[in-house]
């Protein structure tokens, strides 16, 4: 263990920890663009610079290891000047569309420009103009907004392991693209959206079916309802509607697949069943719960009187909750009297 001081506060951390980790431990926030603890450290954006023992060169907190007796300042004058300069440079080639930008409210660039009071760029130079790639069904790539943090590429390479995107061109023209710039729909991309989830700006964004602002939504932690991996995720809810899904920590290590990330439209689909239906004159017709319960209970009683509990069978569901399943088998066993309960687990 080593003891370091951050903004005058002492903290003990394991040897080999980074300054960023040490700061996190005592709740001191250092801004980051390119850092993600799941990825190999690469220290490319430099927004996380800090001052160490009053030295003039400012190391990046996300890759610099701590040492005994280290004294770190995270918001010193030099640090703030350096961060402002980085933001200034980023804005030199970034459209200031915050009013209509989908990411507003959850954009790291916007937040940091606000924090450090960077209103606009002091540079006057060329700007890139890329066409927005809308070819993927679930997300777009707007390279005019990319800040080249590299996270999307690394997530696709190191975590998702699909290798669909990479950096194209060099220098000023650097941007994220698919091989040969054929566009996302022609790439090997599997639409997992894991790159979208880590993009700090709106360069990679989910196509929204409902307009919403990030400050308008509630986040509800839940478990994906598709396959048995059981990924953890947050549902973003606005006006009683799920408008986006974001990956959360858990067995999935903040990853999702296309189904978990993007396939939630069914919840608010107009075809959802809303009322009990009872077959009358050969047709299923809307009815009330009372009538539905009476019909079912009536049938159960008459069939049971005539044929006994052996005439009943029930299918529980690998899709429903554990509690729903428990209640159904209890209903079949305790209220009807048969063990004929099964489900499609075999399929």
């Amino acid at each position, binding site marked *: 263990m080593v003891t370091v001081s951050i903004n005058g506060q002492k903290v003990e951390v394991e040897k080999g920890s980074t300054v960023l980790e040490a700061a996190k431990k005592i709740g001191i926030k250092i801004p980051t663009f390119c850092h993600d603890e799941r990825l190999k450290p690469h220290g490319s954006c430099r927004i996380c610079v800090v001052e160490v023992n009053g030295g003039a060169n400012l190391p990046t907190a996300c890759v610099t290891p701590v040492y005994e007796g280290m004294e770190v300042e995270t918001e010193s004058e030099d640090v703030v000047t350096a961060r402002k300069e980085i933001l200034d440079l980023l804005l030199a080639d970034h459209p200031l569309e915050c009013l209509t930008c989908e990411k507003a409210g959850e954009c790291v660039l916007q937040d940091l420009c606000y924090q450090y009071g960077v209103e606009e760029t002091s540079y006057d130079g060329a700007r890139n103009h890329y066409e927005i790639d809308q070819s993927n069904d*679930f997300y777009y790539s707007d390279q005019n907004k990319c800040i080249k943090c590299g996270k999307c590429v690394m997530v696709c390479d190191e975590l998702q392991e699909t290798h669909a995107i990479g950096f194209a061109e060099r220098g000023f023209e650097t941007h994220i693209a698919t091989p040969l710039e054929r566009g996302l729909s022609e790439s090997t991309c599997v639409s997992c959206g894991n790159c979208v989830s880590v993009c700090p700006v709106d360069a990679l964004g989910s196509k929204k079916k409902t307009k919403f602002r990030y400050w308008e939504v509630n986040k509800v932690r839940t478990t994906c309802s598709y396959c048995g*991996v059981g990924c953890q995720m947050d549902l973003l809810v606005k006006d009683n509607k799920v408008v986006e899904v974001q990956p959360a920590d858990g067995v999935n290590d903040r990853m999702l697949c296309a189904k978990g990330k993007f396939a939630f439209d069914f919840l608010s689909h107009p075809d959802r069943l809303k009322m009990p239906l009872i077959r009358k004159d050969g047709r299923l017709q809307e009815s009330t719960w009372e009538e539905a319960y009476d019909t079912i209970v009536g049938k159960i009683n008459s069939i049971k009187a005539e*044929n006994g509990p052996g005439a009943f069978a029930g299918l529980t569901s690998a899709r429903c909750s554990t509690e729903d399943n428990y209640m159904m088998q209890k209903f079949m066993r305790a209220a009807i009297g048969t063990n004929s309960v099964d489900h499609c687990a075999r399929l």
Partner: protein
Amino acid sequence: MTNSVDEVLKSDVLFVTGSNTTENHPVIGSKMKQAVKNGAKLIVADPREIELAYYADVFLQIKPGTSLALSNGLMHVILAEELQDDKFIEERTENFEALKELVKEYTPEKVAEICEVDAKDIIKAAKIYGEGNRAAIYYCMGITQHSTGTESVMSIANLAMLTGNIGREGTGVNPLRGQNNVQGACDMGGLPNVYPGYQPVANPDMKKKFDEAWGVDLSDENGLTLPEMMDNALRKSVKMIYIMGENPMVSDPDTTHIRKAIESLDFLVVQDIFLTETAELADVVLPATAYAEKDGTFVNTERRVQRIRKAIDAPGEAKNDWEIFMNLMNRLGYEKTYESASEIMDEIASVTPQYAGIDYSRLEGNGLQWPCPTKTHEGTRFLHGERFARGLGLFKPANYKPSAEVTDEEYPLIMTTGRVLYQYHTRTMTGKTEGLNNLAPESFIEISPELARVKNIETGDRIKVSSRRGSITVNAKVTDKISGNTVFIPFHWAEGAANILTNGSVLDEYSKIPELKVSAVNIEKAS
């Protein structure tokens, strides 16, 4: 799974068999690819050249239905090369001699012939698995949906025990659960022979326990399995079926047979979130809530009980499934009421030993992996650590038997079924997502280039596929993912439904799982 998902990255050998992991369990599939990049060796056995095959050190493109022979062959080589774990066999297992005897005749050459792969690859795979320090096996429906499914699973377990690859981190025998809560449905006794917690209904002590817990006199007779229910419906001895959240009209084998069975019923109740193909046949359809509209739990493939939480209100008058059952029970004279899903979990914990330590307050955070026998127990990452449930691990040697469904002149091809990445099960949910439908709009048949040449078929041609049960018409996809006379059709779509063709009548003798992965078919260009 005997082990946990994050242990994928702790293994030095992964043997993936009958699981197209990157499409069916994508997040685990990615972890497998990460493991390979970190240096783990990968063995893949599958009739199709799935994505993982490209990452594999050995890819065994086995004929559908031959994985039992393959496991026996691998064990043969492991014994011949003396790669078995003698200490583990000695201390933790029994019946080893019988296994040794049985696998003697499964020489690589013989197995190569059965599986239609190269004997050298079998030897190579056996050496990789046998030499691994932490070798894990992952499997899915490609193993279980065969007439010898249970025996195939046993032989996989034999392989793990033979090499001591069980009960330690990064090892194990790991079935990947297809649906979000298959594990929970099984745990809760959604099976005809057991109460919650796999406590047999035919065991008088268990019956007594549940009689007392539930305050009723329960039946001690095993109930009917799904295929038996359908047969009994046809015979008119089952009169009423109640279906919650399932769509057997698409998911089950031999759709024509299922339809007849359902139509023979006096009364069908279906409770679901959409009017599914099955619900359309019902007498009463009840609107249920979806996962985002209720509190509850799902149990994932590593036995982790995790919360779902109500985020939005259900549409119209839809109700929680558990509430509907409570209301029906009350009307049938069973008085007990519940206020919440949490209260039901408390009752579950009181009757289910594996869940005894679980309640909602303990599930905040990342849930708990059962067995979790007490309120202070932290849950169980991997099973069989010190000992097996029965004490010693029993080798259960099993001989390979060819699939019950055989090809002949009229039906010379073998069809196997599965899922695709962009659709899910019977598409009740994914079918309502535009983007997914664009990526995977309709059913198709994968045909090998060799076969396509013989039949003069090109990608996009309309193909009539027939089996002894019926026929469907789908689009051709010529691909070298598949080889020889094997064809593949995903089962998601009601239109061009693979399960019109599959055989529901041949069941695994133990698990009663139908032989879904092997159907004899023929194909011709549709006019």
